[in-house]
């Protein structure tokens, strides 16, 4: 494969992975912006969505209805979660709410585990194939999995809708006001409970889209599938400056790009054309950036996160907020 094609292929990979992260990160950032709560159970909402879709499809429910069930079910879980676990903790310290979200995650994960037991399904369920997401698209010399294109497209559409909602509707305006200063918003007559529930509902919709795409890509569904994506979404949100939706979306795509680069660059030693590249360059890549480095990808990503938190806690786009560090 020639170098420009290789680059293009990787770019599409990056954008498709980035869309998933952006969908997750937007939901995470929305809730954080208003409540100051890092909702780690956000990843488990994604898992619940994937489970509902998988069970519905296995039960033979037609795809459109299964998708509606998935979104509605995830919204119900999100609203219950907010009402039961997070509302009593509005004034609690940040760490207490963070830990509570872990507990909520445990409940959801083990709930999924119990449900698959009752449904007599194995621990890890194979996700039923969805026809329009299968196969690849051939564009010239490129082969692109359809699911990557759908991730990219769906991600962009949903994020555009979200932008329109936040900027063009009264409820969206209230949400932005609450994110700015929740007490002042309340004094201006904004029903903050309604705003918070809306944030959770939108988060649930975005998470269920991400959950479906993630499950299709992975091919399986299991109770702790949400853990890694929510961590990635968190990184994306931090990159973008926590609490800003636009920042989280940019962060999601930046993280997708970073991850793909971390895999693509160590592979360069095998891709560079031997005829036109000087042997020193190829030896350099093979010696210092061997393809075995790719398995350390997550370690590098998290090391980058820690550095970022240290150097620019306000994110790449955001301003440095001194409350975050001491």
């Amino acid at each position, binding site marked *: 494969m020639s170098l420009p094609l290789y680059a293009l292929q990787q770019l599409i990979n990056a954008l498709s992975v980035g869309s998933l992260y952006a969908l997750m990160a937007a939901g995470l950032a929305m809730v954080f912006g208003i409540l100051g709560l890092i909702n780690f159970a956000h990843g488990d909402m994604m898992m619940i969505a994937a489970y509902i879709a998988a069970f519905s499809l296995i039960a033979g429910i037609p795809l459109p209805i299964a998708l509606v069930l998935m979104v509605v079910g995830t919204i119900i879980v999100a609203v219950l979660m907010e009402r039961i676990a997070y509302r009593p903790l509005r004034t609690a310290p940040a760490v207490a709410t*963070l*830990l*509570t979200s872990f507990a909520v995650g445990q409940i959801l994960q*083990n709930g999924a585990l119990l449900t698959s037991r009752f449904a007599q399904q194995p621990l890890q369920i194979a996700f039923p194939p969805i026809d329009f997401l299968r196969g690849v698209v051939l564009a010239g010399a490129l082969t692109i999995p359809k699911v990557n294109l759908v991730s990219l497209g769906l991600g962009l559409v949903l994020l555009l809708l979200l932008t329109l909602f936040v900027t063009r509707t009264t409820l969206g305006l209230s949400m932005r006001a609450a994110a700015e200063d929740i007490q002042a918003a309340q004094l201006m007559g904004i029903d903050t409970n309604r705003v918070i529930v809306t944030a959770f509902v939108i988060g649930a919709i975005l998470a269920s889209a991400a959950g479906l795409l993630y499950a299709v890509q992975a091919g399986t569904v299991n109770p702790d599938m949400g853990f890694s994506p929510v961590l990635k979404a968190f990184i994306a949100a931090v990159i973008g400056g926590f609490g800003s939706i636009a920042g989280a979306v940019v962060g999601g795509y930046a993280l997708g790009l970073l991850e793909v680069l971390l895999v693509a660059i160590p592979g360069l030693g095998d891709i560079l054309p031997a005829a036109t590249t000087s042997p020193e360059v190829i030896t350099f890549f093979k010696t210092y950036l061997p393809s075995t480095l790719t398995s350390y990808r997550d*370690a590098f990503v998290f090391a980058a996160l820690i550095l970022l938190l240290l150097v620019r806690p306000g994110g790449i786009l955001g301003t440095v907020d001194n409350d975050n560090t001491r």
Partner: protein
Amino acid sequence: MNTKMQRNGFLVVLGATLILLVGLSSSGSSFWQGIFINLGMYIILVVALNLSNGFTGVFSLGHIGFMALGAYISAILTLPLDKKASYLPDLPGWLAPVHLDMMIGPFPLGFLLATLIAGVLVTLIAVVVGLVLMRLSGHFVAVATLGFLVIVRVVLINADEFTRGSHTFSNVTAYTDLWWVYAWVFIALIAVWRLKFSSYGRAMFAQRDDGIAAQSVGIVIMRPRLLAFAVSAFFTAVAGALWAHYLTSFSPKAFYFDLTFRVITMLVVGGMGSVTGSVVGPAVITAIAEALRRLEDVTLLYGVSQIVLAVLFIVIIVFRPGGLMGEREINFAGLWQRLRFRASVAQEGSAAEP
């Protein structure tokens, strides 16, 4: 607080524990021994985590990474040479012939050395990592330390010449017994207790409660934080070494988020900032978890116990955010007085009744 009374109370607890241990080890009941060995290891983990998270308020979610490192380092050091040759053939030359199996009579000195080496190495790692992580606070440090946990896991899985990667690391000699565990439990408890009531401990609490006020009286915020993090990492690594030589086989997935959450539940239920709570929390959660495990075995509803523990956790955070003990400690003098008061009331009562 009456120090003499406290000391006597401590001796009573020590004596009672010794009697319990003698009883347990002579009873030969491997079920109860297993429960108490696990409880002891949890106490070490929780009291160590308390030192870092409770005392300094810098909430780490990465401690289980230290535990994993402690387990792997100590296990590599004590692995018999023939096992090493067949299981870890790619060990570097200087490490391959190392086998700490020295015995002094029945006492496995090699195991103690391996535990200490693991503890010291992990402490050094903690100091380096802590120089970066301890600058953060709030939930940002929680997520950054969670990142550390992920990094440790990725490294353990990929450094297969040392760890066999994601395969099970097995054939570790089973040195750990009740006596080893509870010796370390007492060392950890005493160390953390003494730290809490020392000027270092006061500095930890002071910078947690009000950073600016603490700085204005000359406390350099990083110092107490780093001290707590390093000592805490040492005991966490020790718990890892004990764990490795108790289970004798383990893989990187044992040291991940489930265990992290279990230990944090014990910490929060016991009370952050209380050494006594670090014993109460593990004891309560272990008792509940064991009871629920029985229930699961009968009803086959695996997962219920995790749900119940998570609900309990949320209930505690909502209704009793300080945990069972808050920051208080067991007060032997007060306890003694209350007992005497009750006794005298009872005496008066019985005297009044002819």
